[in-house]
C-alpha cells in the first residue's frame, strides 16, 4: 500500500490515539510538576464587648483569584515526586538514620502510602498471574476431555466471571462473603467467632481480593488455552502413548511446549491487567487495608476539597514507569525477533 493511501486510512484512528492516549500522557507529565496553590490566609480581628481576638481564616476570594489566574497550580518541580505521599525521600532517609534494625526500617517504609500501594499491587500481580495461568490451564484440559455436545453451555458458564465488569463481579462476591452474607455468616458459625469478618483483618482482605482476581481472570486464560489445545497435533501424543508415556508426561513434554507462545501471551496480558487493579478495592470496600497504585490516583481525583491533580499525575507517571519495566522484556524480545526477521 502506498504511503499516501496508508496515511488517509490510518489518520482517523491515529488521530484518536494521539489526541486521547498520547497527549494525556504528556499532560499527566506536565501536571506532575505542578502542585495545587496554598490557601491564602488573612488575619481577622474580631471585637466583641469582652475584647478583641485575632484569628487566622482562609481568604476564599484571594485563593480563588490565584487559582483562576494559574489554574495549573504552582510550579513544584520534582517536589511532588519526593514528598511524603509519593517516594518520601526525606522520610526514608530519616527512618534509615533513626531505626536500629532493618526489620523496623522496612516496616516503617511499607507504611508510607506509595510503598504500601506498590507492595499491594505487586503482591496482587505475583499471586494472581501464576494462579490464573494454572487454573485456566487445568480448566481447559478438563473441559477438553468432556463430550463435545455439552461443551457449549459449560464454556458459557465458565466465562461468566470474565464478562462482568470488575466492580459488579467484586460486589457480587462481596455480598456473599460479607458478615451478613451466605458464606460469611456460615464461616462465622463454623469458627464460632461472631466478630470474624472481611474488614477486621488486613490479611483476610488481601486474600479475598486475590481470590477474586483469580476468579475473574481465569476464564480468559481458559479460553485462550482451550483454543490452543485444539491445535495440538494428535500424532506425537499417540506416539507417546504407545511409548508408554503417562498422562502427566504427555502434557509436560508435548502439550506445554506446543502452546508455550500462548502461555507467554496470556501471562503478559494478565500481568498488564492485574497491575491496574482498582475496581475490586471499591467493590469490596477494602480501602482501609488494601490500596493499589490505581486506587491512589482515583482517591486524589475524587478528593472533596480540591482535586489533587499534581499528586495524581505524579503517581500516574510512576505507574507508567512501572508498566514500562514490566513490558520491557517483551518489547526487547519482539524487537530482536523483528530485526533478525528482516
Amino acid at each position, binding site marked *: 500500500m502506498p504511503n499516501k493511501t496508508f496515511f488517509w486510512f490510518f489518520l482517523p484512528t491515529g488521530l484518536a490515539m494521539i489526541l486521547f492516549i498520547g497527549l*494525556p500522557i504528556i499532560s499527566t507529565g506536565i501536571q506532575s510538576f505542578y502542585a495545587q496553590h496554598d490557601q491564602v490566609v488573612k488575619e481577622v480581628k474580631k471585637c466583641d464587648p469582652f475584647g478583641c481576638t485575632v484569628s487566622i481564616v482562609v481568604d476564599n476570594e484571594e485563593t480563588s483569584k490565584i487559582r483562576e489566574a494559574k489554574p495549573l497550580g504552582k510550579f513544584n518541580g520534582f517536589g511532588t515526586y519526593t514528598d511524603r505521599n509519593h517516594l518520601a525521600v526525606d522520610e526514608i532517609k530519616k527512618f534509615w538514620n533513626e531505626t536500629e534494625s532493618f526489620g523496623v526500617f522496612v516496616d516503617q517504609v511499607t507504611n508510607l502510602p506509595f510503598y504500601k500501594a506498590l507492595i499491594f499491587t505487586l503482591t496482587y500481580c505475583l499471586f494472581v498471574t501464576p494462579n490464573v495461568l494454572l487454573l485456566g490451564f487445568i480448566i481447559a484440559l478438563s473441559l477438553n476431555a468432556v463430550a463435545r455436545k455439552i461443551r457449549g453451555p459449560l464454556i458459557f458458564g*465458565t466465562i461468566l466471571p470474565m464478562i462482568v465488569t470488575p466492580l459488579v463481579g467484586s460486589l457480587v462476591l462481596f455480598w456473599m462473603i460479607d458478615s451478613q452474607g*451466605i458464606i460469611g*455468616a456460615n464461616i462465622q458459625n463454623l469458627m464460632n467467632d461472631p466478630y470474624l469478618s472481611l474488614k477486621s483483618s488486613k490479611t483476610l482482605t488481601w486474600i479475598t481480593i486475590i481470590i477474586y482476581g483469580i476468579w475473574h481472570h481465569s476464564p480468559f486464560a481458559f479460553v485462550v488455552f482451550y483454543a490452543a489445545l485444539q491445535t495440538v497435533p494428535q500424532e506425537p501424543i499417540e506416539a507417546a*502413548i504407545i511409548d508408554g508415556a503417562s498422562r502427566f508426561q504427555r502434557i509436560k513434554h508435548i502439550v506445554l511446549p506446543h502452546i508455550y507462545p500462548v502461555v507467554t501471551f496470556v501471562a503478559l496480558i494478565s500481568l498488564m491487567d492485574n497491575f491496574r487493579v*482498582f475496581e475490586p478495592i471499591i467493590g469490596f470496600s477494602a480501602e482501609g487495608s488494601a490500596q493499589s497504585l490505581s486506587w491512589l490516583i482515583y482517591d486524589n*481525583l475524587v478528593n472533596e476539597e480540591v482535586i489533587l491533580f499534581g499528586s495524581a499525575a505524579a503517581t500516574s507517571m510512576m505507574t507508567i514507569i512501572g508498566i514500562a519495566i514490566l513490558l520491557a522484556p517483551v518489547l526487547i524480545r519482539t524487537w530482536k525477533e523483528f530485526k533478525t526477521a528482516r
Partner: protein
Amino acid sequence: MDYGLDTKSTRLKTFNTIFIITWLLIACFPFIWTFWGSFKVRADFFSRSDWWYAISAFNTLIETGGQFTTNAYTQAWTEGEFWKASKNTIIVTVFVVSISLFLGTLGAYALSRSTEKYAFWILMAALIFRAMPHITLVSGYLFPFFELQIWGILPTTIVVLVAINQPFTLWLLYSFFKTVPKELDESALIDGCSYFQAFRHIIMPVMWPGVITAGLFSLMLAYNDFTVTALLLNQENHTMVPKIQSYLGTNQHEGNLMWAVSAVVSATAPLFMLVMFFQRQVISGLTAGAVKG
C-alpha cells in the same frame, strides 16, 4: 484421527466431572445467588440473624406478604433514576461501538496491507497504549477537560472511550484482516478500483465475523467501563456502573443497598444474554491475537 489409544480410567473421569462441577459452581453460583436475592428485602438478603432467611424469605413475607418482591427493581428504576443511567449507557454504547468499528476497520486494513517498517512500530505503540492503566489517562484528561469546559457530558466520554478502545480493536481486526488473502483486493485494484473501493466492496463483505467480534468487545468495554465514566461524567449523565457505585455510597437508607443489588442484576442480564448469543465470536476474538500471532 482418534484410534482410541487415549483411554481414560473411570477414576480420572469421575475426578474430572467433580472438578468441572465444582468450578462451574464457583463461577456461576454468585450470579444465581444475587439474582435470587434481588427479589428479597434487605433484611433477608443481608441477614444479621440468620442467612437461611434469604431462602425462606422470612422478612420478605412479613414486609410484603409474598415470597418474592420486585420492590427493589421498581424503586431503583424510578426513584433511583436507573432508567436514566441505562439510557445513558445505551447512548454511549451505540456510539462507541459504531465509531470505533469505523475507525478501527480503516486503520487495521491499512496496517494489514502495509509492508513498511512503520506498520510494525505502530502496532507496538498500540500494544504499549493498550497497557496504560485507564486511570492514569483519566488523570491526564481531567484538567484539560475542566479548562475547555467539556467535562461531564456524554460526547466527551464517547470520544475518550473510542480512543481507549482503539489499540485493542486495531490488534484484533489486524489479525482478522491478515487472514483475508491479499490477492482478493489486489485483483480489484488491477480492475481499476481505488483502495477505498476495494476495501468497501471486496474486503468488508467477507470481514463480517471479524467486525462482529470487534464490535462485541467494544460493546463490552463501553458497557462495563467504570473508571472513565465515573470520573468524566457528572451525576446527571452517569451510566449504569457508576450509578451502581453511587447506590453503595449512601447505604444508610434502608432501600439503597437493595437498589444496588437489583441494579447489578438489571445491568448484567442483557450482557449475559448477548454473550450467550454471540459466544462463538467472543471466544474467537479472545484467541485471535494469541493463537495466530
